[in-house]
């Protein structure tokens, strides 16, 4: 499915598609990708990797395409780009061998989650007695009675380190593939544009007149952008919550669980709720959407990612509500199991779209500036 031979065929087909787009150009103002296409005459792998990662999958170019299937030219840019993106994730993955996890990603993610939850229960049972997993604890430090603090810190620290290394190497592979130098990233104006565009999802607004994108059918709108904002800003809030918790723990000597009115809980809860709403919305759109411009091969990856994000948060919120009862230890194991799986798979699942899309936005900012000069 995502083996080398198929990937070569896909590159060839994408290059053919780009040549048709280049001779048509009706989509010129539909989104920022098409003006970029016109900058090229030939479409090699680095170029296609750049263009496909710049694509935000709004599908406007499919619905508006006079050469979309059933036309014999069979142009389906959103689908083509989605599959190219995954090929590029595999190509950039560090260590390379783990790139294989992108194939059958849905299954990989599910199995990993099951293993991680299992491990947490075993650990919980090991550090306590098995029946203590159904005991109510209260007071500060109750979570660490289930899983010792040192174990939590050590494991999360190691995983965090691995994620950072894998991201830096993956990003470098993407950035330098078309000959761009890492030193160019010192230019803060590129970051200004890219971070702004990422923060507002400007590229999902369509062209300059802000018509939005197609999500379910050929109607334009902004709902996908708003649901995505829910997930993205929810995620950022939970990161803030985690960071605050670390500060409380290490510098203020206040240990989890934190009070309901503490900043840790407020940001975490708000973030969790936002992410759950976002995930539900995105899933709804995906289920209802016209299947033709979507790659059926990627549904496993997409749904497993959304489900994992949602479950991390749902179990987290449940834990918050039930933390004083007898279900706390098992919920903690389940929640930490999801969190562990999420961070373990982070560099080898849909999460990486963030990395390469940001990279593509940086490249876009660079191209845009060159054009203006």
């Amino acid at each position: 499915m995502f083996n080398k031979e198929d990937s070569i065929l896909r590159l060839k087909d994408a290059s053919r598609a780009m040549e048709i787009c280049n001779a048509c150009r009706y989509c010129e103002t539909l989104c920022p990708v098409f003006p970029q296409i016109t900058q090229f005459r030939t479409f090699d792998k680095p170029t296609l990797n750049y263009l496909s990662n710049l694509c935000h999958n709004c599908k406007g170019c499919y619905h508006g395409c006079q050469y979309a299937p059933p036309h014999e030219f069979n142009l389906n840019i959103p689908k083509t780009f989605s599959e190219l993106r995954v090929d590029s994730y595999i190509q950039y993955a560090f260590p390379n061998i783990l790139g294989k996890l992108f194939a059958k990603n849905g299954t990989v993610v599910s199995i990993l989650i099951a293993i991680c939850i299992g491990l947490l229960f075993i650990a919980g049972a090991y550090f306590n007695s098995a029946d203590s997993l159904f005991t109510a604890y209260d007071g500060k430090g109750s979570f660490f009675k289930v899983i010792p603090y040192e174990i939590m810190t050590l494991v999360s620290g190691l995983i965090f380190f691995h994620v950072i290394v894998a991201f830096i190497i993956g990003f470098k592979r993407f950035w330098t593939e078309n000959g761009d130098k890492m030193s160019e990233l010192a230019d803060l104006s590129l970051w200004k544009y890219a971070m702004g565009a990422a923060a507002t999802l400007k590229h999902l607004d369509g062209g300059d007149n802000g018509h939005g994108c197609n999500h379910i059918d050929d109607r334009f709108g902004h709902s996908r952008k708003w649901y995505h904002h829910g997930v993205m800003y929810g995620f950022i809030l939970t990161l803030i919550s985690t960071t605050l918790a670390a500060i409380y723990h290490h510098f203020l000597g206040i240990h989890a669980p934190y009070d309901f009115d503490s900043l840790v809980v407020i940001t975490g809860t708000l973030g969790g709720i936002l992410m759950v709403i976002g995930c539900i919305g995105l899933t709804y759109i995906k289920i209802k959407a016209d299947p033709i411009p979507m790659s059926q091969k990627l549904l496993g990856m997409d749904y497993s990612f959304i489900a994992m994000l949602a479950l991390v948060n749902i179990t987290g919120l449940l834990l918050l509500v039930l933390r004083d009862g007898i279900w706390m230890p098992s919920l903690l194991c389940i929640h930490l199991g999801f969190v562990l799986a999420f961070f373990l798979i982070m560099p080898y699942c849909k999460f990486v779209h963030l990395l390469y899309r940001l990279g593509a936005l940086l490249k876009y900012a660079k191209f845009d500036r060159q054009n203006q000069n």
Partner: protein
Amino acid sequence: MNKVIVIGGGNAALCAAISAADEGAKVILLESSPRLWRGGNSQHTRNMRVYHPKPTETLVDSYPLEEYYEDLLKVTKNETNEELAKLTLKSSLDVYNWMLEKGIYFQPSLKGTLSLSRTNAFFLGGGKTLVNREYQIATDLGVEILYEHEVLNVKLKNNEVEFLEVKLPNGKIEKFKADAYVAASGGFESNREWLREAWGENSKNYLIRGTKFNQGKVLKSLLKQGIQKIGKEEQGHAVAVDGRAPLYDGGIVTRLDCVPFGIVLNDEGKRFYDEGEDFWPKRYAIWGRLVASQPNQVGHVIIDSKSFDLFMPSVFEPTKADTLEELAEKLNLPINQVIKTIAEFNSAVVDGNFDLTQLDNCITKGLEVNKTHWARRIDTPPYYGYTLRPGVTFTYLGVKIDKDARVYMENGKAMTNLFATGEMVAGNILSQGYLAGIGMTIGGVFGRIAGKGAANV
């Protein structure tokens, strides 16, 4: 409440359906194609020519009525219906504003491919995105859209439509009745049989740039029953397109812009027309006819590597060779004649200052057919060849209407409940030639008038 049936599913039909629904009519739209092929030739269009006295949201500068009318007279060689033409041009701005109001998106003016952003409003994403939006608007207004419903016959009784005979998706034929009807189902350019009758055997080698659903059945049915025709059956608008384009729906990407930079040979290896007569946008339309009159209805553009990057990339790879002999062989042309033609051409070239941006002074002298601009020797390998064929855009034959989009009979009587718009009525304004984007204007203007009229008969 009147019941209105709109026949056709392109921009003109949709403008009629939306207007009729706005007037409170119960509207059914019959589109002969399946859902994924809907929209007729509109899905291949890109813009609409709009008069405007001052800049608008997406149109720069101004395009005065007088200039628009002069442009129209130029292409039609003064043969137009002045009343209808002026009505069309004047109403073009109303249609544009109406579309904006309805939530149709136009793209911001850009340094476009044909530099038309002064005279033409570009639909965001092109004609298919426009048509999608129009279907949404129509659906939201309660218009019932029936796909794969092909109108075979419009049954007339005196100057009134009695009913329609419609072929359903299951192949059965059923009668459809309404208070009023709008015919907006295009020309007959996709009907090979009719083309052969009207244009002769050679038409089998023509490609159709647009939809395969313009079979002209409604048009034929009306003309057979005494409706006044307009335009000549033997006239069609054709341009030269890449010979490898699909038989239907090749659309914009099959155009080739390389003619002015090379020479064009026929199947006998001979040149037949001045390739550098004028800028390509002003000449591409005549090359359809030129190629159509050559043996086998083909032409072969030969350029060398000096010119390869001077035009918009084409969708099909050119035939490429390191020698002219090899190129001629690959293109299946008589090698000796090709070499001779090119040698004669090369020795007739008078050196000048090659300049794409103006009618330059690079010419040939002493040839039977001289090239009057951009003439450069074909001498730098690799050489490239593109085969051209006539690509039919639309036909001019239609039905006569008045300013209320009402259809007329040969006996001079107006139909009581039949209106028409789109390619079917374009011949009232365009007797010949073409002005980029005016087809969509005609469809929009008379679509709105027809829809309103039909809702209020």
